Every structure is written in C-alpha cells, then in structure tokens.
C-alpha cells in the first residue's frame, strides 16, 4: 500500500508541469521509495542480481558520500579564492588585473582531469612540519585540483555579476557622495549576490559531476566502488546495473540542484 502510494505520487511528480511540488520534495519521495525497496524488497526483486546490488549498495552510498564531500569542500575553497580573484580582476592596478585575468583564463580553459593529475603529482604525499608528519591524502589533492577550476569560474561569475549592474546605479551612488568602496559594499555587492546564486549552483553541479574523475587517481569514490563491485561479482548484468545505479545516484543528487537553480533564475529574473 505504502509502496504503491509512493509510486503514484512519483509518477505525477515526474511531469514537468507540476509546480506545486518543489524539486526537493520530489527527491525526498524518491529517496524514501529507494529506502523502502532496500529494507523490504518485494518477492520479484529477490533475484540474484538484486541481491548483489543490495549487498553492494551501502558501499556505493559511502562512495557517493566521498564524492559529495570532495565537491562541497572544492566549491567552498573555490568560492573563497574565486571571490578574491574576481575582485582582483577589477583592480585599478593593471599588473594585478592582468595576473588575475590570466589565472582565470588558464584554469577555466583547462580540462578538469588534467588539473586533477596536476594536483595529484605536484603536491607531496605528506608534509613535514618540524618533527610532525602530516599525510596529504589523495582526496584532498583531488579537492584542490577541482578547487582550481571552481575558483576560476567563481571569479568569472563574480566579475560578470558586478559588470551586469547597470552603469546608472554606479552613477546614482556616486552622485550621492558614495566612495568607490562604499558603493561596492552597499549598492553593488548586495545586488550581485542574488545574481550570482544561480550560476554558482550550476557550477556546484558541474564540479560534483567532475568528482567522478577522482577514481582515476585512486580515490575511493562512487565510481571506484562501482568498478570494484563489477570486477568482484563478475557478471555482465550486474556490471550494467551497478554503473546504471551510479548514474542514478549522481542524477538524484544533481537534478534537484539544477531544478532549484532554474527556480531561482525565474524568481530573480525581473526583480
């Protein structure tokens, strides 16, 4: 009964023209349905294939958590660095401005995989501080590798948002005797933040998808777990299923973000 109710609701929600349900509620329903399937599998699901999948699903979810952890940290670092570099791009000092622009161009136009290899092999595997040794795990290196393009993109989003504030706003604030720094702080930046939110969330989704590359440098993430599961079970149908499940997990995580971004874009379009 509960199952069929959930399924019914989900099918209604799948239609794009149901604005009464937020993407978050939609995702919540799917997650609940998935958990119900895992905890009380109906008879038709108890084939060997599904059994394998259920066995491996905790490991897959843990892998997904690693991806989420990397993405959150990479975007957090990238955002802080990006805001700084974005501000430097608007500096009145030409050398500073040019350096910041080159940083942005360099890391915005580089494939993420190359940046991940770059950060993996550039940084040492441990750091000596006096007599202490701190290990520098691969997942941190990947995080830094992804923070590079994230910061370049945030810098560009920030610069774009500032330049998108119409010139009359600068003029109006100037005529009210605002200094440049006061004008930025009180007039321009507050208007920028809401404009930056949708592209910033798009960037987050992109970086999250990029975290799948972490498996290539030995980070134990979702894709790496899927590979291990696939070779361990060694069944063609399971291999297909496990990669399909990985795809689904990424989709379940990224799709609500994308929908929420669209919602924000509509909301801020004319305000």
């Amino acid at each position: 009964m509960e199952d069929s109710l959930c399924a019914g609701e989900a099918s209604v929600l799948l239609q794009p023209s149901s604005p009464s349900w937020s993407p978050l509620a939609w995702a919540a329903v799917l997650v609940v349905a998935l958990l119900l399937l895992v905890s009380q599998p109906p008879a038709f699901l108890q084939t060997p294939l599904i059994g394998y999948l259920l066995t491996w699903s905790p490991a897959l979810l843990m892998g997904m958590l690693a991806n989420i952890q990397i993405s959150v940290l990479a975007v957090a670092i990238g955002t802080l660095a990006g805001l700084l570099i974005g501000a430097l791009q608007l500096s009145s000092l030409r050398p500073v401005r040019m350096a910041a622009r080159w940083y942005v161009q360099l890391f915005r136009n580089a494939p993420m995989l190359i940046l991940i290899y770059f950060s993996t092999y550039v940084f040492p595997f441990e750091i000596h501080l006096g007599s202490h040794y701190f290990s520098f795990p691969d997942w941190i290196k990947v995080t830094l590798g992804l923070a590079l393009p994230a910061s370049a993109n945030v810098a560009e989003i920030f610069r774009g948002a500032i330049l998108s504030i119409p010139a009359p706003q600068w003029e109006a604030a100037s005529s009210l005797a605002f200094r440049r720094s006061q004008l930025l702080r009180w007039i321009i930046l507050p208007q920028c933040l809401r404009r930056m939110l949708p592209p910033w969330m798009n960037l987050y989704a992109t970086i999250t998808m990029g975290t799948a590359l972490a498996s290539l440098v030995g980070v134990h993430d979702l894709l790496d777990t899927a590979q291990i599961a696939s070779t361990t079970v060694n069944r063609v149908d399971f291999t297909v299923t496990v990669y399909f499940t990985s795809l689904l997990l990424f989709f379940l995580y990224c799709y609500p973000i994308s929908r929420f971004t669209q919602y924000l874009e509509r909301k801020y379009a004319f305000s």
Partner: protein
Amino acid sequence: MPLVESRPEAGQVLVELRDVHLAFGHNAVLKGINLQVRRGQAVSIIGPSGSGKSTILRCITGLLKPHSGSIILDGVDVRALKSEAALIELRKRVGFVFQQYNLFPHLTVLENLVIAPTRILGKDKAAARREAHVLLERVKLGGKAAAYPGELSGGQQQRVAIARALAMQPELILFDEVTSALDPETVGEVLTVIRELVHDGMTCVLVTHEMRFAEEVSDEVYFTEAGLIVEHGSADKIFSDPASERTRTFLNRALNGDARGEARRDGVGRGPGKLPLSPHFSPISFDRLKFSI
C-alpha cells in the same frame, strides 16, 4: 514646513561655468559653455536632444570631467578636484535626480532615503529615518516607506528619487529630464514637487523638455544647441521675445505642440488640478513598460 529653509546669502553666484569644452573621442559635446547659477535661483536648460544639456549637469557634479574651461562651485574649482575625497565633499553639496530615477532596487523606499545620510554623512539612524518619513510625506508618498522601487509607478519612483537627493540636504539640485520617462498624468505629480522646492528657495538647475513648466518656474533660461549656449535670459524674455531665430523656431515647434495638447486636453476633459500636463506624450500607459533591474 518648507522642504528647505531659504538661505540668507541668496543671490550670490553658486555655480559658474566658463568656456567649458568636452569631447567624447572625436565627438565634441560641449564647445564652450558659459553658465551662471545664483543661490535660490531656478535655472532651466532647454534645447534639442543631443545638444549637451545632460552633459553640463554631469560636469557640475564631477561625474564627467571637461577638457578645458572652468567650473566653480562656491569658490571650489570642480575641474581641479583630483582626489576621491574632494569629489565626495563636492557631491555632498550637490543633489542629482536622473531621468530613469536610478533608485536602488534591492532597498526599500525608506532605505533608499536613509542609506546615504547614515553611511556617508554618518547621521544617526533614528534621526535619518525620521527625516526620511518627513520627506516622504512632503512628496506625498508617506504610505510607501516599506515598498520596493519595483512596486512603484514611474512618477512615484521619481518622487522618491527627489526625496533621496533632498535627504542629503544639498545646496543645489540638478534635475536631468526628470519627467521624460513618465506618462502625462504622472508628470504633474513630479513637477508639483519641483515647483514647491523652487518656491522654498532651493537652488535648482533643470534640464527639461517641459517648456510651460520651465517658463513658469525659472528665473533664468538657457537655450543650448550643438554644445553651445545659443542665448540666455529671463524666462519672460526667452519665451516671449527670443533674440535668436533658432530659439524662436525651437520654441514655436515646442509650443505649437502645446497648442495641440491644449485642444485635446479640453476635448477629453481630464480632471482639474492635474496641470501642467506634458505636450510631448501620447496617452499610452508607460506603466506597462515599467522595467526594473
């Protein structure tokens, strides 16, 4: 209570432009402007579009820097101001009202009025709010303090913009075609506010296409064309007996438009008390075209 106290030193020269030249690239916009504004005066600048009227106002408040000539505001040479601090001091004394209002869309009406006095002049927040409420009452928008600019009509936004300029207690206000983006019915509300300001003795420089209004309120009228002052004089003189043939042609066209507007006004029979209406606008609702940022 008047919007501003009339000033004891009324009559002294407050602004003086001498032989001001400005070019954007190869396009000479001002080709030797001479202009004088005395304290307590209302001075109108009229003339065809593109004749440099708005540019003159931007030069006075230091938003644009002329290439040669001098602009003296109460003894201060505006062109010589190099540092940001000096420009800030100048702009504290000069208010500016824009054609497109340029209110801050992320702030409420009240915050629009309070932000500059508190952040720039360092005024106490409660006092600034009290003064802002008084100013809003004066521009007849007492009930709109909590609204956002995007929720107001063009005429209301423009009155907020005037109140925002007044909140800084400037000695001089520059009005840059402040009714040109408004529909005929709201033009009246804005002009009423400006008329009161002029009567209260505020020094005003108006760039305008509202010929009747310019004639009514101005002490002095300047007619510009192609970056030059063609002629200037008292409003009576310019509107009844201009010296220049060019001024005469321009005013004939503008006032013939008025004549037609008059006829239509009588025919349609708009409510009384809406004067003066602009001759330049067809009765389209510009409210529909309202845009925000």
